[in-house]
């Protein structure tokens, strides 16, 4: 029965391993934030570094504090779909509006 497989998959946890403690995650978040502030002051192209760093922090919060890592796949799937549609919105809009400033 293919259909029950779909549901079983969604009901599975993403991971069963015990991960780092909340405190470790907090320290990583704090250190990353500190690094971000430092990077933001450097005379280098910052976006390619800062945006991935923000994503790492977002992923840490979602995976550990919001328990997506050990919770049902269903939750992760629904949330990730929402986030992906949102990122698509931001990127498409950025593209659409940048060509327009080019005078098209």
């Amino acid at each position, binding site marked *: 029965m293919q259909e*029950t497989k779909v*549901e*079983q998959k*969604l*009901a599975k*946890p993403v991971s*069963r391993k015990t991960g780092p403690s*909340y*405190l470790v995650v*907090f320290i990583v*978040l*704090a250190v990353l*934030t500190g690094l*971000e*502030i430092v*990077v*933001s002051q450097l005379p280098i192209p*910052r*976006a390619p570094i*800062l*945006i991935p*760093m*923000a994503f790492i*922090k*977002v992923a840490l*919060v*979602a995976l550990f*504090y*919001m*328990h997506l890592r*050990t*919770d*049902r796949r*269903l*939750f992760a799937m*629904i*949330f990730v*779909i*929402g*986030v992906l*549609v*949102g*990122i698509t*919105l*931001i990127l498409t*809009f*950025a593209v659409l*509006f940048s060509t327009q*400033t080019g005078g098209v």
Partner: protein
Amino acid sequence: MANLTNTNLTSPASVDAASVEVEHTSMGVDNRKLGMWVFLASEALFFSALIATYVILHGRSTGGPTPRDVLSLPLVSINTFVLIASSMALVTGLSAAQRQDIRKAILWLAVTAGLGIVFLGGQVYEFSHLVTDKLLISTNLFGATFFTLTGTHGLHVLSGIIWLILVIVQLVQKRDLPHADFKIEMVGLYWHFVDLIWIIIFTLVYLLI
């Protein structure tokens, strides 16, 4: 019709210690938690639209002040640490509730709400300084998009604080509240989400100026 056994997944959500014991639901998860995640997915779109507005428009201001002129990184950095710490306080409270240590849980929830209030206070302080620096929502596109985005986020923090207070009052009222850890996990999902949005705002608005 006599066969009432659920052929679906009925295993209780043992995976996650914080969820309440789940009776026969098709996905074997609690309705409220599923609903919360669905809501957060929708909220992700809400903030995406606001962030897109900021990204597109804030640089098109025809006059000052610009972000560089008025934004104060030290103040906001402190605020960011405060919010991250509040998330940490909340999960510590959740752990306490899972160990049935309701007194500690209440304490940590209060710390979370307190840090939330500090964050909001910081934001009010920041806004009032911007106003004295002649940046209003009507001044230019930076002002318009900045106040809309961070203001909406601030309102979410405020809602989170109110929710936290409601949970704290419930816990104080009734120490043996059933599923206390579940209630904390639910407000936690919302709170961490608001924190998560701030991480993005912090990078896009304050670091990449």
